[in-house]
């Protein structure tokens, strides 16, 4: 049993880059094992993943499109986590956020398009936040564990949206339960269109300018958490509630605030899916992005830069994964849900599994020093 190394002697990059990287590698090895059990060649699968996600331009476009969604849900989980809250409700909040986007774009279509976009973004945030505020309030004032309540709200969102899609805002001309499509003018410009504007012919991919919105949101979250009073207070409550009370910070208010912002961020996923890609509400369009956001946030150590990188990684897994499912009949997309679970396991629950050994190696054997 290796004795733990003194915290202060471990360089930043060993703790925050090497250890996560090794955890990730372990996760991948275990995932490879799963693929093998499923009857396929893990190495072959890996090659397909890399090709599918980076090998050709449209594939890369898909990768970034997925990453857009993960950035939103990853930021959502991360900000709640900074206040020590586990918001598992990203799915439902994204779903309801999308509802907001559609309602606004559809019923306010008389307004100029840029205004509609702006209002739609706000609507997504508002609707997403509304879906998170009740679990937040219940945690703050009634002590109800936010994990269960947010999961319940996921189910309730599902039921609500099916109801709306089937009975209320349905496009009667279609067979399946979807809404009417938004008019073409309202569609967010896609990468394909922008490239064409500059004279490049690019194949279809769902990547659109909401990717930029995601980057903006990342910056916004970074700014909020580390450069504003609100972020400061949320972090204080998350780290040491007693001390926060001493400093005159209200734990209850900050719990609710964290959940509201978290829900708003998850809701913005609706902008990508509804305004940018499908231009209508499809049943269950969040399709697991909310849960992936959890893995992304944990892997990214709840920091926007890490979340961005992790989102790219998962985008790669999703896009490359669909290449794999296309070529390998034995692997379905659910395998990649399992991979996410393994990643959360190694990056989250078991993150300290090999930390003592790794730190010991770098500090005592390689004699790496901390630079102040």
């Amino acid at each position, binding site marked *: 049993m290796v004795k733990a190394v003194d915290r202060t002697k471990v360089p930043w990059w060993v703790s925050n880059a090497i250890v996560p990287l090794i955890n990730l590698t372990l996760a991948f090895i275990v995932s490879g094992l799963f693929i093998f059990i499923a009857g396929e060649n893990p190495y072959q699968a890996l090659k397909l993943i890399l090709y599918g996600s980076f090998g050709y331009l449209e594939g890369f476009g898909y990768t970034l499109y997925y990453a857009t969604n993960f950035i939103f849900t990853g930021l959502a989980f991360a900000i709640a986590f900074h206040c020590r809250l586990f918001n598992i409700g990203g799915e439902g909040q994204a779903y309801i956020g999308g509802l907001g986007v559609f309602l606004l774009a559809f019923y306010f279509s008389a307004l100029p398009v840029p205004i509609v976009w702006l209002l739609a973004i706000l609507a997504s945030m508002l609707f997403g936040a509304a879906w998170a505020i009740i679990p937040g309030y219940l945690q703050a004032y009634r002590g109800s564990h936010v994990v269960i309540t947010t999961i319940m709200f996921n189910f309730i969102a599902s039921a609500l949206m099916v109801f709306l899609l089937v009975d209320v805002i349905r496009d009667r001309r279609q067979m399946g339960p979807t809404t009417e499509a938004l008019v073409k003018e309202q569609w967010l410009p896609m990468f394909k269109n922008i490239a064409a504007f500059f004279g490049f012919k690019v194949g279809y991919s769902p990547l659109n300018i909401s990717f930029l919105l995601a980057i903006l949101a990342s910056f916004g979250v970074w700014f909020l958490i580390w450069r504003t009073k609100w972020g400061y207070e949320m972090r204080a409550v998350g780290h040491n509630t007693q*001390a926060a009370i001493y400093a*005159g910070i209200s734990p209850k208010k900050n719990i609710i605030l964290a959940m509201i912002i978290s829900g708003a961020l998850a809701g913005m996923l609706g902008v990508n899916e509804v305004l940018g890609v499908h231009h209508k509400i499809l049943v269950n369009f969040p399709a697991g992005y909310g849960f992936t956001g959890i893995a992304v946030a944990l892997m990214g150590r709840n920091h926007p830069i890490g979340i961005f990188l992790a989102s790219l990684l998962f985008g790669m897994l999703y896009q490359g994964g669909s290449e794999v499912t296309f070529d390998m009949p034995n692997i379905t997309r659910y395998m990649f849900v399992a991979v996410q679970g393994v990643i959360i396991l190694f990056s989250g629950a078991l993150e300290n599994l090999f930390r003592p050994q790794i730190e010991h190696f770098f500090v005592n054997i390689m004699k790496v020093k901390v630079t102040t």
Partner: protein
Amino acid sequence: MLDRMISQPILELQNVNKSFGHVQANKNISLKVNKGDIHGIIGENGAGKSTLMSIVYGLYQADSGNIKINDKLIEIRSPHESILRGIGMVHQHFMLVENFTVVENIILGFEGEFVFGEKLNQAKENLTKLCEEYNLKIDLNATISDLSVGFRQRVEILKALYRGAEILILDEPTGVLTPQEVDELFKILRSLKKQGKTIILITHKLNEIMALTNKVTVMRQGEIVGDKNTKDTTKDQLAEMMVGRSVLLRIDKKKPNIGDTVFEVKNINVKDNLDVMRVKNVSFDLRKGEILGIAGVTGNGQTELLEALSGICQVDSGEIKLHGKIISSKKIFAGPRQLREQDVAHVPEDRQRMGLVTEFNASENLIFGYHHQQPFSKSSIMMGKNIFNYSKKIMRDYDVRPQSPFLLTSNFSGGNQQKIILSRELNKDPKVLLVGQPTRGVDIGAIEFIHQRIIDMRDKGAAVLLVSVELDEILSLADRIVVMFDGELVGERVNENVTDREIGLLMAGITN
């Protein structure tokens, strides 16, 4: 020969040493406890009493030295082993399961059977017998959460006896008891002694020593400074040994220029979070330009008093007025933020639990509690440059090492963490300063500096409330001294020609 057999020590410690980091809690302790004695160990905070007994009970291991029971050298590596050797301990914080009954708590780990039946009834019978033998009137089927603190303590004693304790160690047992409960406890301990049990009583209260013990050992700063038969000594003598003739760091200070009353505290009672009344009917005034020192051993209500004054908890009854306006009563409760707005600064006793967020960096902690004010934040945006410059300045002024505002607070030594808190609160030039244990863990050079700053504050007209377990500090800084004992204020003195012995007696509960 007979004499030697009778005075055979049941417990003997030889040259026991124990350090925690650079702090040496026990220095070369040699101690003999005779069978059938009630042996008291008395000393101030930090004297090393609890550490020593924790070693005997197996919670810690000594760095060096021997422990002998009945003249046999033994090794105790865990509480389980000490229990097997007949040592029982009743801690300050009880090891009881709240929603179990008395019986369930006592038999836990010693049930003797998988399904409760025969052995359980046997245990109940044995316990009933024990209760009668030792005069412990306990309802065996009561649930712990329904029992008063006094009764819970009895359960702990019964638990130790049931597990075969021949030596019973009690660590500050009367801190949480009412006077009547104390009397009951004394009766129980006397009857235990009659039955041949050996009792070791750790306390800071001289009354208890004189009333109960037949031998007393005095500890100070990790060492034994006296070992006497109780009947051969007096309270005065013991008090003197307890506080010692230490070198007082007297600071030259001007006479206080006392102004208006700032805090008016009237008949307040404050409960802790276990619903035990910790501050009992306390009244005092705090005025501008003076340092009021509250002396006393930890655990006599100072913590709760500070928390009530700083707005962290509400008083149960009575009222606290700041500048004439009620800030805490049964109906009114102003929180810490409001108090800070009124220029009340608070240096808490427990820096890690309350005063700091160790995961923040130094600059973030240097503005903790004031982060919402200008120049640190404008319209809710944190002004990084202002914060950085401010941090650099204070760290320089107060000699916080290393002077790195972005270093994580957990990487600073305890003393420097304390300086971070102090610099934060003192630098604000508050009108009122509430400070608890300001120099805990701080090196000598810094102590002088901090004391000087507190005096400066008082000279500028601030009202200072200083809570400290270090008598030197109180005597050095305070203009007026009150002592807290058992939740009450006992004895007020103006700090002129006051001796440490006087205060020491008050701290130990002797009031005349």
